[in-house]
């Protein structure tokens, strides 16, 4: 399936979108660009760390709410569009810790209404002032040991998860290599899943080594073959993040307004597909460099 078709079919205005990747690693940028091109509006974005994948959607004016543990690109700075939208009161964020968010996906993937954690106790993350919904949490005693307390967090079942993985087959079996972050729990908790991938592999290979499958096809609705689909973030074993392009994005996001619009125009709106964008960011020469950087550190 193409990115355009998958996004048209599975992402709707007002959807809660589970965001794959973390900071500068394996963000599903090809699919995110497609959300921007199709102007999917009033989205709620959920994940652990939300990064450039979230920030570009916020900057494009498509996001009403985020629920996450962090918004930033670490060494490359904060998520400027997100930060500005919150400071201007245009976007509501609900804060959890990263374990808090993955705990909510864990509840969701097992069909349970809530899940306990020992994190967050005693802090403002569990206080009325930072609850944007009626009931963000409940502190309860362990029924087997009344002196022991945990916080219950509401489970999360995103309408659609958007991830980028290394390998997939036509059936939708996914292989994620390297770090996994919150993705296994988030993918299994989502009502539909769109996965773009670096390469399509034969189903025979999946069936021959099924222990290597990270996510079986039963959870997955659309597979989109898209080499370099996480650029400018990295894909373990394939390519490093593109520090130059991340800095270019950050400069535009920090500037906001016309600077940000110019970025969107140049790299998203004026491109009919992600392949056109890949030509603009430097094509083969850039790919060879980022691939060589990755090979050096494996």
């Amino acid at each position, binding site marked *: 399936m193409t990115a355009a078709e998958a996004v048209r079919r599975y992402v709707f205005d007002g959807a809660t979108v589970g965001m794959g990747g973390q900071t500068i690693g394996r963000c599903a940028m090809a699919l995110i660009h497609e959300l921007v091109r199709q102007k999917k509006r009033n989205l709620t974005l959920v994940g652990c760390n939300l990064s450039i994948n979230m920030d570009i959607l916020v900057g494009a004016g498509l996001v009403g709410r985020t629920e996450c543990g962090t918004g930033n690109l670490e060494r490359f700075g904060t998520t400027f569009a997100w930060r500005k939208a919150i400071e201007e009161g245009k976007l509501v964020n609900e804060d959890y810790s990263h374990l808090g968010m*993955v705990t909510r996906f864990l509840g969701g993937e097992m069909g349970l209404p809530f899940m306990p954690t020992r994190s967050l106790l005693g802090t*403002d993350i569990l206080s009325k002032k*930072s609850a944007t919904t009626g009931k963000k949490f409940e502190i309860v005693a362990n029924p087997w040991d009344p002196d022991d307390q945990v916080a219950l967090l509401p489970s999360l079942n995103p309408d659609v998860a958007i991830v980028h993985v290394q390998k997939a087959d036509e059936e939708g079996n996914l292989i994620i290599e390297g770090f996994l972050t919150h993705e296994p729990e988030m993918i299994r908790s989502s009502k539909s899943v769109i996965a773009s991938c670096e390469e399509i592999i034969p189903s025979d290979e999946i069936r021959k080594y099924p222990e290597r499958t990270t996510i079986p096809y039963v959870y997955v609705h659309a597979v989109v073959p898209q080499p370099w689909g996480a650029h400018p973030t990295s894909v373990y074993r394939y390519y490093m993040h593109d520090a130059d392009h991340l800095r270019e994005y950050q400069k535009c996001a920090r500037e906001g307004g016309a600077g940000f619009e110019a970025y969107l125009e140049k790299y998203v709106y004026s491109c009919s597909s992600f392949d056109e964008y890949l030509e603009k960011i430097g094509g083969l020469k850039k790919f060879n460099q980022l691939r060589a950087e990755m090979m050096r550190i494996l």
Partner: protein
Amino acid sequence: MAETVKSDELMIIESARHIRDGETVFAGTGMPLVAAMYAQKSHAPHMCFVIETGPIDPQVLPVPTSVSDPKGMHRAAKLGTLREVLGCLLQRGLVDVGFLGGAQIDQFANINSTVIGDYQQPKVRFPGSGGANDIASHAKRILVICRHEKRRFPEKCAYITSPGYIDGPEGRKRAGIKNDRPDITVVTDLAVMSVDKSTGKLQVLKLMPGVSFEQVQANTGFPMTASPHMTTVDLPTEENLRVLHQEVDPEGEYLGKED
């Protein structure tokens, strides 16, 4: 002994001294990652590095710019999930040292990395907890590294993202945190402080070389006390600095280029 030592070098080397060989160390992004790398390359070659995106016991290559940087995955024992490292290792209580940075830290060693001002429409929005709340809640010992400025050390954090002793010696226990009396050490460019468990408040244990207690007080937004056994931080050796610059941060990504 080294002739001139920069404050960043001192902060990193001093905080790394708090890591013992063989310990399991959970390091957040930025300076904590650099200091934990320095410990691994110097006195703690057998420490088990844990990074929140999933890497368990990697031999970290110089120098990751993010917890998702593949340089932090090199020759790991396992590349797991966030739930595995933050849940199964950290929350379960298997992590010896949790290593954090911080935007603001108050007299009870609570950390704010979320907002200044109103939550719904803040004056400044910071990135948020990330794994910091989890680390501060569950690690057996907690190390914090940050710059010592008055605005970073308010009497009370406007928003508590990660728990220190909350409001006193029994604060964590009252809140239901199982790990209720951890060692918390804060290393800055001026001093090393730790929580006095009888008051739940930070006190100065060591001064950085050439720094006076008055200087620490002047840069702190609450009355600071000095430990009766207050000493001075040892200067790093030439070899310490060589390891830091050549093996940990050869490109000067965090420490800048050497003169």
